[in-house]
Structures are given as C-alpha cells and as structure tokens.
C-alpha cells in the first residue's frame, strides 16, 4: 500500500505527504500528490471545487484510508505513519486536530463542555479510567480544573467567554466556526487542519479569523494546514500554498509565486473562460504554460 524506502521528511518538516493517491471506485480523487507542511507555518491548500482538498484532509486524519502513498508526521512526540493509523488514534497519539467543512459541534452540549470533551484522553487518565473519578478523588478534581482553565483560555481567544454555559447549537454561525477551532486547539495538537474555516463568514468575522490563525501560529508555534476558497484569507496569512486541481497538484510555493502561476489562474478562471479572453492573452497564457509545467515537477518549494 505505502511507498517503499525510508521517510524523506527533512528537519523542520512536520508533515510530509508523499505520492498520496485516493481512488473511489472509478474516480481518482487524488492523483499522486506530494507536499510538505512545516512547524510554525500556515500551509494553505487551495483549488476549485472538487479538486480533492477535503479528501486530502480525510486521508490525513484517518477518515479515509489512502489507496497508496505515505503520510509522515514528525513531531516532538515521535514519528507517525498516519496512513496506517485509525482516525481516533491519529488525534490521540499523533496529535493532529481538525475542523469540518460543515461544522460538527456537539450541539446539545454547552460551549464549555465541548471544550472539555476535547480533553477527553487526558481526563480519562486522570479519572483513573472512571474508577477514581467515581468516588470524587482529588487527583481528578484538579485535572478537571486544569481542563476548565485551558478551556477558559481558548474561550477568551475566540471571544466566547460570555457564552460558555450556552448550548453550542444555539450560537450564531460565525461563533460556531470559532468554537470548533477552539475545541480543536483544546486537544493541544501539533498540527491543526482547518477545512474552510472562513466559509460563510462576513468580512469582519473573516478578519478576526485571520488574527486568530496568526495568533495560533505565532504564539503556539504549531503547524496549521488550511483549506480555503477565500483568496484574501489565503494570500494574507499563508506562508506556503499548495494548489490542487482535479486531484493533481498544479502549483506549490510562496503566495506571491502561486498568485502569478498561469496554471493556477487557468484553473480558477476555468476552461470556458478561455474563449472569452482576447486572442493575444490566450496565446501568451499558452506559451507560458509549457515552462510552468516543467517547473512544477521539480517540486515548487525550494
């Protein structure tokens, strides 16, 4: 299933995706995609609808088993081959946290409970796998207090302290998005995967989100992997961008470089719009495409 040979992750690389391929029956959702994500950096994965971005996430977090390829996570806690792990173990041991495109909170539980549930494994150990906790031993009470304090910290960061005791399902959409990020951060991850966190947000909320993501990157020095449609979010905060189209990687590099990549422009403008372009522009694009394709194979990130 996986690629032979030793993992090629180099120092500073948190996550190495190598030759990832995912096939659903006859549909090739991801076709031989490779890229890296680094500690303390925001890596964005962009691409038109159906490019396979969420599928990459689902492979990373174990919800899908990739058809082939290797996913290596190298963190302080050790080296993990994610493609061989069950989904909940990826979160538990490799410490990869994620959010979902269509928000998945625990709607009938309070905001605070959502954040405490995220610290489940830590608290389970502290409660002596329930036996000690049942009789209200001090060890567990302290652990629970610590968990609440961590939750309080993240509530403050996402400006939801006032709503801590309300049901998560009663929050407005934008608050729910931020709560989901706070919940993921409560698992104390080394890699945070955000699936379109800006979807459905208004301008102001989107700007707040940017600040939150920069805060997470700068203060907590973890790796952030971001799927996004909204180019203003991506260009403003990403350190590194990977572009997918029809399951293939078409560009990989710094925001400025990706922005001007003709392949990317074409993927975003779409094939039909080619005809609408003035003939001379189309010719220029076609000329530029050749060398750009060759450059891609070298693997973008230098």
């Amino acid at each position, binding site marked *: 299933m996986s690629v032979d040979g030793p993992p090629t992750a180099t120092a500073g690389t948190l996550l190495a995706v190598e030759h990832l391929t995912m096939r*659903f*029956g006859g549909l090739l959702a991801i076709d031989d995609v490779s890229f890296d994500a680094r500690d303390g950096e925001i890596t964005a994965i962009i691409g038109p609808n159906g490019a396979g971005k*969420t599928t990459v996430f*689902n492979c990373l977090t174990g*919800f*899908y088993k990739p058809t082939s390829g290797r996913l290596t996570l190298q963190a302080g806690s050790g080296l993990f081959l994610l493609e061989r792990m069950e989904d909940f173990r990826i979160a538990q041991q490799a410490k990869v946290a994620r959010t*979902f495109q269509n928000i998945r909170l625990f709607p009938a539980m309070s905001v605070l409970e959502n954040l405490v549930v995220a610290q489940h494994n830590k608290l389970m150990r502290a409660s002596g796998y329930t036996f000690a906790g049942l009789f209200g031993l001090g060890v567990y009470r302290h652990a629970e207090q610590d968990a609440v304090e961590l939750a309080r910290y993240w509530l403050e960061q996402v400006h939801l302290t006032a709503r801590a005791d309300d049901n998560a399902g009663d929050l407005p959409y934008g608050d729910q998005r931020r709560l989901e990020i706070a919940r993921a951060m409560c698992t104390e991850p080394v890699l945070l995967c955000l699936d379109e966190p800006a979807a459905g947000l208004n301008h102001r909320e989107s700007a707040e989100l940017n600040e939150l993501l920069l805060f997470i990157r700068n203060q907590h020095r973890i790796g952030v992997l971001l799927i996004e449609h909204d180019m203003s979010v991506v260009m403003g905060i990403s350190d590194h961008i990977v572009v997918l189209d029809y399951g293939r990687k078409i560009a990989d590099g710094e925001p400025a470089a990706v922005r001007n990549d003709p392949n990317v422009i074409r993927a975003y403008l779409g094939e039909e719009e080619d005809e609408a372009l003035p003939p001379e522009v189309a010719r220029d694009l076609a000329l530029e495409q050749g060398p750009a394709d060759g450059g891609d194979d070298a693997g973008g990130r230098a």
Partner: protein
Amino acid sequence: MEYFVQQLINGITLGSIYGLIAIGYTMVYGIIGMINFAHGDIFMIGAFVSLITILLLGMAGLSWIPLALLITLIVAMLLTSAYGWTVERLAYRPLRGSFRLAPLISAIGMSIFLQNYVQLAQGARVKPLQPVVQGGFTFMERPDGFTVSLSYMQIVIVVVTIALMAAFSLLIARTSLGRAQRACEQDRRMAALVGINVDRTISLTFVMGAALAAVAGMMFLLYYGVIDFYIGFLAGIKAFTAAVLGGIGSLPGAMLGGLLIGLIETFWSAYFTIEYKDVAAFGILVLVLIFLPTGLLGKPEVEKV
C-alpha cells in the same frame, strides 16, 4: 437427494415471500435511510385483507378460482397500499429531518399500534383458511414411498414473484417515477431543486413497498393457510435480514437475500433443529452485518465527513 429437492422447492417458495417483503424495506431504506419497522405489520395487514376478501368472494359465490385470486390480489394491493401511505404520512413525514432516532422509534410505535389494532378488530385467535389452490405435481418417487411434490400454489407464488420483480425493475429503470426515486436516493435536496416532488416520490415508494408486502401477505395466507396478528414481527425481521444480506438499497439484492434466507431457514429446519431456525436467521444477520456490511449486491458506502 429427493429430500433435498423437496427442501429446495420449499425454500424457494418461502424465499420468494421474504423477497417480496424485503423489497419494501430496501426501497424505503434506499430513499430515506430509515428502517420501516412497521413494514412487517403492513405485510400482516395485507394477509388479513386477502383473507377477508377471499371470505367475501366465497360468500358472494364466486367459484372460478383464478378470477377470485386476481380480485383478491388487486383488492389487497390497493387497501394495503392505503395503509402504507397513511403510515408514512402520519408517523414518518413529520419527522423528516428530525433527530436521527426519532423516525425509528416512531416506526416501532406504529408497529405496536398496528398489531394491536388488528388484534382488537379481528381477534387474537389464529385464522385458518381452507386451501384455495389445491393439487400439484409429484415426481421422483423413492423406493420407500417418499415423493417430491410441487404444488400449484408453489408455482403460483414463484411465478407471481418473478412477474412482479420484473415489473418493478422496469418501473424503476424506465419510468419518470423510477428516475425521481433514484434522484431522491442520491440527493434529496438537489432533487427538490430540479423540480422533483420529493414528498410524493417518498409516498409512492411506501405505496409500492406496501403493495408488494400485500402480495407477500396473500401468498403467505394461501401457502400456509393460517395467519394471526403477530405474523408480521418475525416475517418482518427475516425480510429485513434478507434486505441487508442482499445489500440494502438494491432490488435484485433484496430478492437474492430473500431466497437465501428462505433456503437457509428451510434447510436448517430440515437437517438440524426446527426450534433454532429463527436463531439461525438472526445469527446470519449478525454475521452479515459484521463481515459484509454492504451485503452481497450493495454498493460500498463512503462515509461523508
């Protein structure tokens, strides 16, 4: 060998009845993703409507059996469909999009209700019916006198089942109703956006399932000659097992599953113990769900994250 052939015939007959019920489970599951727990009781109502129709026709003095059976078939399909439609309308439609266990619990309530309704209206005693279709072929006589028999009733059951299966497959594959149904299976909201009347399509699915269950009920009545208000429970569970075994959501799968369950049950009773035949059916359900969750002919399901 002769004994084996006899069991094979019996198993296929029983399997046809299970298959007809299983189609109702599979269609409803395919379109709204719920287990219509009351479907077994719809089958039971079909059997009762058939019984009453046959008695009425007998009182009216209709003696040409084929015509009587045809009338019974039509009446049973019509009235049982009305039950299927009403159940969907009252107990399931208001819960569409509700919390996920709600429709199932509502369906269990409906099943209890229907059983007790028929018990109250028709009495709790078993209802015997004198054989309507008699006679058959015998062949493969053994020296010790054992013969394999194939009754006309068994032939009727298998032929009717095959005919209905073909008709329904055509209906699903060729007509606009079938297209609407498949569209709703894929994506209900999108189907509504392109102008499909989703509510009507779901209602018709229940009606079709109930009509087939009515046929199964009638066959059950004629084959075994005795029914009561409780027959729907076990038959329903076995038919559901058949639907799962064949791959829930797949029409040929339901038929195949029905045949397999019928055969397994018959052979188990014939060669092992008759007491544990229900345990065998449930055991198979558990094994199938654990090792082959998509069934024999089901499509692999990709979890949507």
